[in-house]
């Protein structure tokens, strides 16, 4: 194993990413190698320095924009009706409207159909007699 490969494994050892056998090998190496022990200490220090820098916080404006957009998408979803549901709603409205109109016609124009039937019958009759005369 080259020196660089050992250091790569020391880095993985630092992260707890080696299996038991590899970790035991690195532990034994560290006991005998002052240079690698120093390297491990430097890794710890570098990790500490990076952690000290900390994480950036999500800007408030981004947070607010995301939550506003998510809320508006949710509202749009609630308003949205699939095509099949839209067709069913229109069909129901049309049936209700037709029944209502039929009911109104029956109440307010009870003799309309009889009168119309009489008118049509009369017209047909006069048409028949005039053609028979010829």
């Amino acid at each position: 194993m080259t020196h660089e490969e050992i250091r790569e494994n020391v880095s993985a050892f630092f992260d707890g990413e080696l299996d038991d056998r590899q970790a035991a090998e690195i532990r034994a190496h560290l006991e005998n190698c002052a240079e690698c022990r120093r390297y491990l200490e430097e890794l710890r220090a570098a990790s500490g320095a990076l952690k000290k820098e900390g994480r950036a916080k999500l800007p408030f404006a981004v947070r607010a924009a995301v939550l506003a957009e998510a809320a508006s998408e949710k509202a749009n979803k609630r308003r949205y009706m699939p095509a099949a549901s839209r067709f069913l709603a229109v069909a129901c409205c049309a049936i209700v409207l037709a029944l209502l109109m039929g009911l109104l016609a029956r109440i307010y124009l009870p003799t309309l159909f009889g009168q119309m039937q009489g008118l049509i019958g009369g017209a047909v009759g006069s048409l028949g007699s005039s053609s028979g005369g010829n």
Partner: protein
Amino acid sequence: MTPEELVNLCGDGIFNLALRLCGNTSDAQDIAQEALLKAIKGLPDFRGDSSIHTWVYRITVNTWKNWLRANSRHGGAAVPLDPVADASGLPPDTGCDVGKELEAGETKAAVDAALSEMSPEDRAILTLRELDECSYAEIAHILGLAEGTVKSRLFRAREVLRGKLSGLSKGGTYDA
């Protein structure tokens, strides 16, 4: 999980990852916003095969890759890496001791210099490991790399960081 809970839990991590990947605050805000909205939309489909962080970070990386493609199509130029303090808008908390402030400032400058020397993916690997404490397997899943690649690239990134910081320790001011 509600959208607000998701933003509270993962918002900072997503923004940090976006910042490390694209290197500047303005684009990182756009990428973080898009990634968060995608995650919120996809929440009902999240099956819990991986941790919620791994899942949203993967969405963030995919959003960054799309951004990168769109940016290169429009001839977008590379931008310098923003330091973290600029992103948060807060000055570093260094106390009142002038000597300590100088040391902290130098350490911060060395960390920023090291990060700006790394590729976007190496920066992401280093911060996912050090700040989010992701395992190599999680980092590999997030970035779509092999675990062995994560191990060697993390080692390489640490070498760059260690090099910059050891320069400080030789000057006698580095004390992490």
